[in-house]
């Protein structure tokens, strides 16, 4: 199982309007690592995540997921390996009921109905959302929506989880539950967030991005205590470190 790696080699990305979102980014995330990606608004975090499963293709450089190079041909295979959880659960939950939404991925993999049911129940149970399965998403609270969004990705059993601001809009209790849940996952995790306390709790490694360039990459304990670095990137020390 040592091949669940994510490797970016000299990746650059240019949006059609000429914005240079990523410039020569390189890093390598090995199996089972939890990595936080932090940076100012517009630093390129979301663009980076969209490369993880081939929604965007690098303008130059290569992305390597497991033993696959990201190309238009390998995209479908890579999407099975990398589950992406979006910032806004309303974008992610597009089916009319929770059950169908979580079943969407497994059904697309061509699984039969009993296997799908097992997967869905397993995934919903993991996020304690089993009793939500027949509800339409618009009857859920924000915390429930984001739990279901995670279940819908878990149901495909990806090797790597990529999340964009997973705790945005959550109340403190839901946020705490999410953090505890994330800690139990053994997947490789890549979390883009401004919530530095969440990153500190969940991740071991941290990558700081500024204007599309990696400016720091190291253990969380080094980076999140570096006040100067954080402030240069429109961030500040995690609240839990400010008290002392």
């Amino acid at each position, binding site marked *: 199982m040592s091949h669940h790696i994510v490797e970016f080699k000299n990746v650059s990305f240019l949006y059609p309007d000429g914005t240079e979102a990523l410039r020569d980014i390189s890093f390598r995330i090995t199996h089972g690592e939890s990595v936080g990606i932090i940076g100012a608004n517009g630093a390129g975090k979301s663009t980076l995540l*969209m490369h993880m*499963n081939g*929604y965007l293709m690098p303008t130059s450089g290569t992305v390597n997921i497991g033993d696959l190079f990201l190309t238009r041909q390998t995209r*479908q295979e890579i*999407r*099975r390996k990398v*589950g*992406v959880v*979006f910032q*806004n659960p*309303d*974008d*992610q*939950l*597009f*089916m*009319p*009921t929770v*059950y*169908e939404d979580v*079943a*969407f*991925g497994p*059904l*697309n*993999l061509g699984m039969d*109905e009993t296997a*799908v049911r097992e997967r869905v129940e397993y995934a919903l149970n993991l996020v304690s959302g089993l009793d939500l399965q027949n509800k*339409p*998403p*618009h009857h859920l609270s924000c915390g429930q929506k984001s739990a279901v969004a995670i279940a*819908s*990705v878990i149901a*495909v059993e990806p090797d790597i989880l990529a999340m964009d601001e997973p705790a945005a809009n959550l109340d403190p209790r839901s946020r705490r539950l999410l953090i505890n849940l994330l800690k139990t996952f053994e997947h490789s995790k890549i979390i883009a967030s401004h919530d530095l306390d969440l990153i500190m709790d969940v991740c071991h490694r941290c990558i700081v991005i500024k204007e599309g360039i990696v400016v720091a990459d190291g253990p969380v304990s080094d980076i999140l205590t570096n006040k100067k670095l954080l402030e240069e990137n429109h961030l500040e020390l995690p609240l839990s470190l400010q008290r002392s």
Partner: protein
Amino acid sequence: MTFDEKYYNIGFIDQLSYNNTFVHRLDPRAKLIATLLFLFTVISFSKYEIAALLPFFLYPVLLMTIGEIPFMFIFKKVILVSPLAVFIGIFNPLLDPGQVSIFQGLTISAGWLSFFSILLKFTLTVSTALLLIATTSFPSVCHALRQLRVPSLFVSQLSFLYRYIFVLMEETMRIVRARNMRSYGQHGKDIRTFTRIVGILFIRTVERAERIYYAMLSRGFQGDMPSIKRFHIKTGDVIFAASVAIFLYIFRFYPATQILGRFVQGVFS
């Protein structure tokens, strides 16, 4: 009515559809077929028909009573869309001046007759369609359609419509609130602001559609919406659909009101 109230109103019909009564528990396919049969039967009557239409009110009234749908709710909705039907028929009394006698010694113009016939048909069809939605959750209607072999593309469109109408309305509600809070009275409520709001809403919708498509691709979407079988036809459902069909047939081809009238006359004489 403000936008907020409208929003909660749509939410209400949706909440109703998740109740649990006999009507709600019926298989959505049975209800869908029954409703369609009903609509076609009502529409098939000639344009001067009134008396034969009246027994058909039995169906919506029964659905409403057993399904515990508040009468005023359906009534208000029917009134809300009624201008459409009224405008279709309003000139009939002028354009169709032929005389028809309804009772001995009482004649009215054929135009009025057809006007009332339109109103009756309108009330019957709209209230029945509303009742279908109020007693069947929308996802189930979509399922029923798919199982009845409606092309999956149309069904997906419908279910996306249902899923995102609430999101879209919430978005609109937020924009409208933000505008009202800073428009201090009348300023800002003019047509120019309105067109801009519509524009913004459109752009936001397009962007959202893009994100949704990304989410679908991320989970292996390759052009086909997967579906799950959820319902199994029970005898109750078959009996329901069959009895609706039989009653519709009787009311359509036999003068039920006349027979009933003679029967009542017989009892009293």
